């Protein structure tokens, strides 16, 4: 294959990885709402 | 007088009657709200700050000082931060002490005789200088509107 095909593939992989990283971080950053002192039932 | 008018004024030495610098910015202090320092550019030496106390006169075209020696380097941490533009007030967001944003500062009105800040002007409203609580790198903090 020509060299430019590899370049395009690399760019796509990079974009996918970055998007995943951002999405994972966004989900991790979602805050929780935590109730203290819940009894056991 | 407004910061927007006074910026870029010449700083003139009374001793030599020559221009010794140019007003690049203003540093506001709290308790009460006032201009504490002028940031000066195009000076001959290393100095970049002038204390308000060293300002002899503040006219619409020029600021007079005794001589070029009053243009000095920062003397403490706060002055170093001032010099770095961290504390530049134009463009800074205004937060009420309750946590609501009241706009960004577009201009400041001050008394050229005393240096006291009379009004902060944002896109949305005008805020009396007496409402200033604090200002830092992130925001200017003011009391809630007393008339509301």
């Amino acid at each position, binding site marked *: 294959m020509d060299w430019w095909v590899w370049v395009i593939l690399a760019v796509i992989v990079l974009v996918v990885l970055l998007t995943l990283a951002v999405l994972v971080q966004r989900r991790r950053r979602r805050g929780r709402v935590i109730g203290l*002192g819940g009894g056991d039932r | 007088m407004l910061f927007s008018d006074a910026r870029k004024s010449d700083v003139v030495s009374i001793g030599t009657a020559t221009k010794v610098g140019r007003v690049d910015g203003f540093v506001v202090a709290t308790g009460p709200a006032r201009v504490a320092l002028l940031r000066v550019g195009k000076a001959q030496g290393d100095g970049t700050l002038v204390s308000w106390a060293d300002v002899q006169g503040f006219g619409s075209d020029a600021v007079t000082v005794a001589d070029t020696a009053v243009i000095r380097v920062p003397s403490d941490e706060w002055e170093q931060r001032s010099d770095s533009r961290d504390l530049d007030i134009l463009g800074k967001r205004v937060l009420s002490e309750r*946590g609501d944003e009241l706009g960004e500062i577009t201009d400041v009105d001050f008394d050229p005789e005393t240096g006291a800040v009379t009004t902060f002007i944002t896109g949305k409203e005008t805020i009396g200088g007496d409402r200033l609580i604090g200002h830092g790198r992130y925001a200017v903090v003011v009391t809630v509107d007393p008339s509301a």
Partner: protein
Amino acid sequence: MIPPSPTSAILLRARELAGRPVVTLGGELEAEIKDVVFESDGGPVAGFTLRNEGLFSRARKDALPWRAVHGVGRDAVMIRDVEQLVPAEELAPKKVARKGNVLDDRVLTDSGRELGTVLDVVLQGGAGLDVVGYEIEASEGLGTAGRRVFIPLPDTVAVSGENLIVPASAAEFVSEDLSGFGAAVDEFRSRLREGRDEGEQN
């Protein structure tokens, strides 16, 4: 000068507070809000855990207790100074925090009827910040399956594992929007009080 009460008497969703800047009265950005922590008994907000600003930042080891909060506004949570922060373990011990998240929990009435799953928690401002209701994705049992509705909560919120128990009568005070919800909470709590008073009289 009398300091203003930290919040105005409005309703807000707890999840809106995540990511809100924490700013000192001196105008410095200290942190961002991470989690909202509340007491099950009585429902007041006990405080907030913190993280630093920036996309890839971690949770901080310190936390913001409610007593250190100067104001909760649309754009920031104001604190007097950073000396009043406490260790996060003191506000919400890790073990409790891990299990205590009510988001996505199932809501059941005390008679066993499933109402839905928790999407958000409704807080009411005043002198403090109080948990007054849940925003849930309604299940079929509520007759409005899949819809987002608000159900009011009594003063004490029963939290247990993945299930949250509410009085059966809460289902009668379901709201579809936040603006009318304040009234629904008041009516629901009056009803509970009447029921208690009657029970005591008998």
